[in-house]
């Protein structure tokens, strides 16, 4: 971090209907592949979010990639149908301004050709060139923006954003923008604490994962953001796999066949980061989604081999919780052709 970057040419894919989303070869290689070993189990896999590796999704603190405009169009469509995907409890207004400041500062610092922020006291001037936005506003005065501060800036930022209030040594999900989620609902979880919204996760409670995780999260301080990866699999590159729309995507889980698995089944990677917000003392929790189709994975020999082994050895409880049971066998069979049984090199990055 600290270095700047230029944005690639934006792609026009869709995340619904004809599902025309495709990764460029560069986009595949920069993805944050989530497996550093040949098998997977829950762990407190958190690390400091810094020292971004050049040429990867970690390079800049808030990553913007070739799918930026397509994702923002999809978010606007979701919000048109269901405004409750963005909510903020009354005491979270300050955290919304903190979020706006953080995202604007990060983008302007990382991609100065595309974003700029000028501040003169509380008179701010924000330019988002890719989206054609030129906005002057008064920091702290929501009447000078077309939306509340959280909604305004997260309509211009890839990934979901959850804002956690800290009280009584716990974190409370009191605001968020959630349209690219792996089958969970902000409207259902809002107001819950860390242990309540994680209640459905199998195995991790018994392993004491959440007690250790919250201790780590509460210690996240300004200028020291942290990150972790999570993953699941999704049929079709559909960002909005929400409980509210289960009737649309749920049946697709049975549509995977040996013929279509390579292009229709996606590894869904979540790059989650954790930022202490300065004025509100809240924690911002961005959850950024990256899709890799099974065919995308097959272009990186180490990843195809490892994906095969991870899926093959996944504990049944996790397979079931992540909703993989309908297609896991088909994916393992297809990936087997890329796995010669030879050892893989340590770490997640391609050889």
């Amino acid at each position, binding site marked *: 971090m600290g270095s700047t970057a230029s944005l690639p040419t934006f792609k026009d894919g869709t995340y619904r209907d004809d599902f025309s989303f495709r990764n460029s070869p560069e986009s595949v290689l920069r993805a944050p592949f989530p497996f550093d070993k040949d098998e997977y189990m829950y762990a407190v896999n958190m690390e*400091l979010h810094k020292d971004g590796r050049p040429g990867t999704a970690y390079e800049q603190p808030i990553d913007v990639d070739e799918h930026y405009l397509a994702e923002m169009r999809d978010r606007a469509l979701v919000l048109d149908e269901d405004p409750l995907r963005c909510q903020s409890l*009354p*005491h*979270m207004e*300050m955290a919304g301004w*903190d979020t706006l*400041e953080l995202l604007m500062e990060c983008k302007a610092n990382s991609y100065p050709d595309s974003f700029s922020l000028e501040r003169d006291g509380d008179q701010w001037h924000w330019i988002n060139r890719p989206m054609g936005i030129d906005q002057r506003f008064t920091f702290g005065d929501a009447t000078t923006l077309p939306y509340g501060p959280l909604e305004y800036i997260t309509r211009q930022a890839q990934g979901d954003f959850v804002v956690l*209030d*800290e*009280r*009584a040594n716990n974190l409370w999900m009191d605001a968020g923008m959630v349209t690219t989620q792996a089958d969970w609902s902000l409207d259902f979880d809002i107001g819950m604490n860390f242990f309540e919204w994680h209640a459905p996760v199998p195995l991790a409670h018994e392993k004491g994962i959440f007690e250790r995780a919250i*201790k780590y999260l509460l*210690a*996240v*301080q*300004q*200028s*020291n953001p942290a990150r972790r990866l999570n993953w699941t699999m999704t049929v079709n590159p559909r960002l909005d796999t929400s409980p509210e729309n289960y009737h649309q995507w749920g049946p697709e889980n049975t549509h995977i066949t040996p013929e279509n698995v390579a292009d229709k089944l996606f590894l869904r990677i979540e790059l989650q980061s954790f930022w*202490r917000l*300065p*004025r*509100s*003392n809240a924690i911002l929790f961005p959850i950024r989604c990256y899709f890799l189709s099974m065919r995308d994975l097959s272009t990186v020999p180490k990843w195809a081999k490892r994906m095969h082994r991870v899926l093959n050895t996944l504990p049944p409880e996790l397979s079931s919780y992540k909703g993989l049971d309908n297609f896991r066998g088909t994916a393992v069979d297809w990936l087997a052709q890329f796995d010669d049984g030879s050892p893989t090199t340590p770490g997640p990055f391609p050889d």
Partner: protein
Amino acid sequence: MSNHAAIDVIVSEVVEVNSLIKRFHFKRRDGGHLPAFSGGAHIVIEMQDGEQLRRTPYSLMSSPLDTSDYQCSIRRDDEGRGGSLYMHREVKPGMAMKISPPANLFALDLRARKHLMIAGGIGITPFLAQSSQLERTGGEYELHYGVRSAQLGAYLDVLQERLQHRLHTYYDDQQQSIDFDELLSTQPAGTHLYVCGPTPMIDKVLNTARGAGWPESHIHFEHFAKASPGEPFTAELSASGVTVEVGREQSLLEAIEAAGIEAPYLCRGGACGQCETRVLDCDGELLHEDHWLEDDERSAGEKIMPCVSRFKGKRLVLER
């Protein structure tokens, strides 16, 4: 988390507030703005006191809305380990120092219908920042401030102007004291209580509030007690394979840091739990001074908070 990115600052001003308290102003060395913060936050000031590197937390008292400088008011503690004496005697305008980014362990609960603040002495400092914040964002609050005398009551004038009828002052030398029973039994539902001051005062407020049925979630407190000096002792650090000598004026955490070993910390006042360390062997007595461990954990003798607690005896081995 211990690897805070320290901020290089210049002491821009030192103001004598009264015979016991000085106020220190810090600006960034590179001239930029300091990080924004929330009322109740503290910074950790690094002091190179001869051979010894001290890291001492102080509340930020300046307005969270003004990040052109940070201000801390420090009361001289002639009985302490020397951090406040160093600040009072050695720190002059123009001096370069390092501070941590702000962290807040005493934040306002922004859901509160009303904030009830109780301060004793130098415990006023976090409330100065919080009242600035509330003046800007709105929110009902009142402050009850106990001081020794009008001369030793810091910032009475500032607070009088800012709070007016919401400020209630109590002077020890006029035999005035806060009637906690009355105060804590007459608050509207949805009130949050905040108390910062000497430990006996905090204990009295907490006991009264709990006795009056206040929910724990609505009670917030911050001790300003810091590590106290004590007899020197030795500690073995098993993971590092190092033995450290803890001096009279040094904390165990400082001795660990002086040996070049990174240890986690946040408050350095025995309250946040970050530096909790396992005791592997103890032939002697752990002198617990923290507000973190539960009573049963103390009697079990398997954990110590090295930022404030000490040891007396033959052998102490820590998992560090």
